[in-house]
């Protein structure tokens, strides 16, 4: 009774206790897997999942921009009966020559409305080039649109938290946690990469019969192209090169079933699309209409009558799953430029579970050894250091939970390492106190001077480790960032627990230590003289 009355409460102890309560409170949701509260997310390497770093072939976007300008020039000159000699285009420019010099002004006038190009006219020859700004704008737009589209698609895919983010100028980072099976991963990958470019094209009935004997060059001479059937590449279709309309005019797509209960996709067109579609079908009864998706013909039904209302169907023998994903892809729009894999990391859930188990083993093993060793070597001082160490672990977990940080396998290694390194501060301090006690200093003096002397060294040592950790965070990627995070939090937390916290405990116990005069019990050393 008398003794506990003498224990001086001090601000350090109060802060330490608050820190412990904070640690316990905020780490609880993660540790006990509570429903509420912010939790630590497990990295893909621990829970399994798919990490993709995608590149965008932005040059394809500029190419298609050039292509569409060329198409519109062709369209304009045909309508206006302007004779054009040899219109050609490459990646970034279009060249053509007019036969009649009198038309130059009309064409120039028409081109005035096209933005983002430079027009160079030499007599009757035209050279059109995309401006550098336009190239950058087009490419940036392609990446933006790809991110948006992929995000839309994955949001509808049904995974908990798909992450789609821009990385650098033209890379896209996709992280899908919690993919459980190979089939799901395959589906996700197909959904991401699908161009989903829908085109309704007219079959060239005049020449369709000869398609098997035609080369691509032959077809091009007629303004046609040859497309394969989606299921059977041996079946070819000859269709007009310029589509009647494309997926840009789509407002909705969903999965449905036909009369035989086979899955199909219903789509709806916007007003403009519906009008074009209605006009075309009205004028071409008896001919065939090819439904083309990503350059493959899905079906080519006969047009029996004018189709108004702007809705249609894409049939094909797909499974329910395929039809569902296809509808999602169509709804979210087409990719302007193709994407490709720059980096892929895929971890199966069973490997993740193994990694968790292995790192937990290492954590517990390391922890037990360190705790026992400290107690054996420093006695009561070791116990004090161990309290700080345990508090440190809880605080790391609490801070990570609070910020919703991701715990990766290297991050786990960082926590294990923190166990070894966080006691360092206490080793330094206790050694200093021991030294001072052996010199015959009083308990009070030994504690205060010990902390003061140790402080500088601990600070310098921790700051240099922090420098390395910050660099690692800035330059590390993926899982390695997790290591930098746990190490940094561990170091910062150790300043609070190992320095401030233990100092408070000693101040609290000072009177008791002083009276007991048992340095062997308290600090594990022989009695001072």
């Amino acid at each position, binding site marked *: 009774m008398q003794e506990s009355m003498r224990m001086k409460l001090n601000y350090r102890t109060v802060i330490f206790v608050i820190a412990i309560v904070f640690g316990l409170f905020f780490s609880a949701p993660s540790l006990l897997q509570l429903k509420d509260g912010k939790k630590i997310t497990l990295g893909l390497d621990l829970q399994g999942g798919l990490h993709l770093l995608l*590149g965008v072939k932005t040059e394809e976007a500029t190419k298609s921009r050039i292509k569409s300008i060329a198409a519109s020039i062709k369209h304009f000159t045909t309508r206006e009966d302007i004779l054009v000699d040899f219109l050609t285009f490459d990646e970034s420019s279009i060249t053509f020559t007019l036969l009649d010099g009198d038309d130059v002004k009309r064409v120039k006038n028409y081109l005035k409305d096209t933005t983002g190009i430079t027009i160079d006219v030499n007599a009757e020859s035209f050279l059109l080039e995309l401006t550098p700004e336009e190239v950058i704008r087009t490419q940036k737009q392609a990446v933006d649109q790809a991110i948006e589209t992929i995000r839309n698609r994955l949001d509808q895919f049904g995974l908990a938290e798909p992450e789609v983010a821009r990385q650098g100028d033209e890379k896209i980072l996709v992280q899908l946690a919690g993919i459980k099976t190979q089939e799901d991963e*395959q589906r996700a990958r*197909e959904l*991401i*990469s699908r161009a989903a470019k829908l085109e309704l094209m007219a079959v060239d009935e005049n020449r369709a019969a000869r398609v098997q004997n035609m080369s691509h060059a032959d077809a091009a001479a007629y303004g046609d192209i040859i497309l394969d059937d989606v299921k059977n590449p041996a079946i070819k279709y000859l269709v007009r090169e310029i589509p009647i309309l494309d997926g840009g005019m789509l407002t909705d797509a969903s999965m449905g079933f036909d009369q035989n209960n086979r899955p199909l996709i219903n789509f709806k067109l916007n007003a403009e699309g519906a009008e074009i579609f209605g006009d075309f079908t009205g004028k071409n009864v008896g001919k065939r209409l090819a439904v083309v998706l990503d350059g493959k013909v899905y079906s080519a039904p006969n047009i029996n009558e004018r189709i108004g209302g702007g809705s249609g169907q894409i049939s094909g023998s797909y499974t329910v799953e395929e039809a569902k994903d296809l509808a999602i892809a169509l709804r979210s729009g087409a990719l302007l430029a193709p994407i*490709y*894999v*720059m*980096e*892929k*990391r*895929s*971890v*199966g859930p*069973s*490997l993740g579970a*193994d*990694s968790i188990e*292995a*790192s937990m*083993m*290492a*954590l517990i093993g*390391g*922890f037990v*050894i*360190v705790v026992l060793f400290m107690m*054996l*070597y420093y006695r009561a001082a070791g116990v004090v250091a161990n309290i700080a160490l345990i508090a440190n672990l809880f605080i790391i977990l609490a801070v990570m939970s609070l910020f919703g940080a991701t715990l990766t396998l*290297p991050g786990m*290694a960082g926590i294990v390492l923190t*166990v*070894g*390194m966080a*006691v*360092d501060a206490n*080793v*330094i301090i206790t*050694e200093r106190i*021991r030294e001072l006690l*052996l010199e015959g200093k009083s308990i009070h003096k030994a504690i205060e001077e010990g902390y003061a*002397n140790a402080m*500088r*060294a601990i600070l*310098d*040592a921790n*700051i*240099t*480790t922090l*420098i*390395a*950790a910050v660099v*690692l965070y800035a*330059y*590390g990627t993926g899982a*390695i960032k997790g*290591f930098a995070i746990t*190490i940094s939090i561990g170091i910062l937390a150790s300043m609070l627990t190992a320095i401030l916290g233990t100092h408070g405990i000693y101040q609290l116990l000072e009177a008791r230590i002083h009276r007991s005069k048992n340095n062997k019990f308290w600090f*594990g*050393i022989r009695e001072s003289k």
Partner: protein
Amino acid sequence: MEFFKYTRPFNFMGKSKLTLTLSILMLVTSLVVLMTKGLNYGVDFAGGTIVQVKYTADAPIDEMREKLKSNELFDGASITKFGSADEVVIRMKSATSSITVDIGDVTREALVGTGEYEIRRVDIVGPKVGNELKEKGIMSLVLATIGILIYVAFRFEWRFAVASILALVHDIIIALGAIALVGLDVNLDVLAALLTLLGYSLNDTIIIFDRIRENVTDSKNTELSEVINESVTRTLARTTLTSLTTFFVVFMLFMFGGEIIHAFAFTLLVGVIVGTYSSIFVASPMLLWFGFDIKAYHVKLADKTKREAEKEKMREQFESGMI
């Protein structure tokens, strides 16, 4: 318990010729190994593919090799056991860029008929990303070193900074030598371990340097080697203990952390030992070799105090004059 009862300073600096020889020997061996055998860059830096396969029974490695001859994508592929007999890793130099059908899928198909298996991990790193990661990796090591150099020079003195950096370079080269010798794959995790080693080894050095700084400032002894001996001896208990606790946990990671974290743990294991050694036997004697002079340092300190006192005085005069 006390491992080191302080009675009198050990003559560490007297042994510096011996340890210098040892260090040079280790450095030369490491450099020779690095130059002849070279580092084994893993997919993170070299680009390529890793496929980890787990069988329900022992992995039929010969049969797998036979199957993988079917496709030129697998040219130069190596198959090695991964931790246990039923798990293997296939390393390939090629990487694919298709999203829907990648080299992992091709591997899965190719292995059909070799038994019951599960593909547990597929890492594909394209050449561009590999190069980027390599550049970033080297950059991070350089930046961390420069950052530390500046901080230590600012807090101590330039000779301390140069000595600690040289000790770090010493540690990194030997650690890399050990990695090359064992033939571990160098991936991002090894880089992380090297950066940790940087911070850790520096910790040790700084604790000793801090003691030297303290003793240089306080003690009347102007014989540097004696001051260093005294400081190293005084901090010996701490150096050994912390190295021990860190060694314990890293050893636990090495033993139980699983195959994926093996290279990381190995690098740290070597690093803890070399880092502790270098703090005592490389960084400290270097102060001697660089001709750090206690008397000159005292004069500098005195100058600094004087200047500050004068500044303070002038400020006081200025302020009182103003009022």
